[in-house]
């Protein structure tokens, strides 16, 4: 795995998890896999970050969990977005978009021409 890993800015992991879970009930391992696949291996979330984040979100009632069987017939803890989780996701991604655009604008300034 040669692709460079990026450290996620503070608070971003929660947002990514919420987005992933918003697509449908999903267990922790699948969340990690999807994040890695969709981000083309840039985002790799170790279990030591993922599970505390999931439990924190569940404790804040942004997620709710339920034990279900996977397609292969194993028991797994599936997470689902709650109503307040969805609200959090919407406000969080709007904020993130704004910030990303702003950062893009600043970094995209032509150098030396602004005097």
């Amino acid at each position: 795995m040669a692709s460079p890993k990026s450290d996620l800015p503070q608070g971003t992991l929660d947002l990514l998890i919420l987005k992933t879970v918003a697509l449908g009930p999903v267990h922790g391992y699948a969340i990690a896999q999807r994040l890695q696949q969709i981000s083309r291996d840039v985002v790799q979330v170790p279990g030591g970050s993922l599970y505390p984040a999931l439990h924190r979100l569940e404790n804040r009632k942004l997620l709710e969990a339920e034990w279900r069987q996977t397609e292969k017939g194993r028991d797994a803890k599936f997470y689902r977005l709650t109503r307040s989780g969805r609200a959090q996701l919407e406000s969080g991604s709007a904020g993130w978009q704004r910030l990303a655009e702003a950062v893009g604008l600043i970094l995209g300034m032509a150098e030396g021409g602004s005097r």
Partner: protein
Amino acid sequence: MNWRRLLRREGQEASLAKELSFHIEERVADVMRWGVSEEEARRRVRLEFGGAEQVKDDCRDARRARWVEVLSQDVRYAWRDLCRNPGFAAVAIATLALGIGGITAMFSAFDTILLRPLPYADADRLVMIWDDMSKSEGNPTFFSTPAEWTQWRRLNTVFTDIACSQPGNAILSGDGEPEEVRARKVTWNLWSVLSVQPAMGRVFTEDEDNNGARVAVISHGLWQRRFGGASDIVGRKISINDAPYEVAGVMPRGFYFMPSHDIDMWMPASFPPGLRNNFTWHEAQIVARIKAGVSLGHARESMAALSLQVTAKDFRGPHSATMIPLRQQMAGKTETALIVLLSASAALLLIACVNLANLLLSRGAVGGREVAVRAALGAGRGRLIA
């Protein structure tokens, strides 16, 4: 807070373990798909995932509700620690107990004397009146005389009524051991001036006072102590100073009045006619209730003027009168003393705490090794201090 969920810790722990092992198993299966042996796959996953126990601990922390668990653990730990060092525990407990006991005792005195309302209705309108004898006796709060009381009562315009009390003594005999109880001879209107009612029976009347009737009002304490709280106490004949008296009533628990808390009996003043004209028999304490709408200052001026008028013909020269609000009178000089004592006992408690902190500190030096071990095992800063 969901306590039941908290108590189902076992279930939550199992669920957490299961969730993590599911992740690891899935990962191992995926890695093996690249053609790695199971053993190698497990090794890689372990490296990638990190210590499962650490992850679990972080998850529990994330659930926040952990603080209750932490607290109960620490309490249990502290208890074991105290049991291991009974000497230290005894010293610590004794130090704190003394400090706390001291301040509690002081505060209850402070509370009774200064904070709690006096046991009379509308006590802020009650005042004590004294003869201002600063010229002849050098004392601005000298005892008054029954004669002055009679005149003041007749002529004043600022009080609803004025009552008078004189020292009395009472030796109870008859049933049981003879016993001297603290008594006061009071005018019949003391009760209406103070606006208090007896808990049982009645107080004596103006007629009884004027006719020298042998009736007595007793305190709740005396009723309980001497008469065993007998329900038929009202109307009972008792022997006071070898004369038969009738118990007219019992005052409520907690009732007290000047000059002291431990007065147990009130008898009619029944001033003889000679005393009612005697302006030199300085033995009386006077309490008065200011009329509604009359200010303290106005009452004071009016009273001083009245006193000068009443004693105009006194051979010692006329004197004024001093008026002191009852609350101030009853707190008296103890007010400052109490505040000083209260502060002192607060300081004492602080000293006790400092001593204890010192003890803990010196013990902490000994326990340094243990702290190091606990820190190494992952105890947070806050828990080490606690």
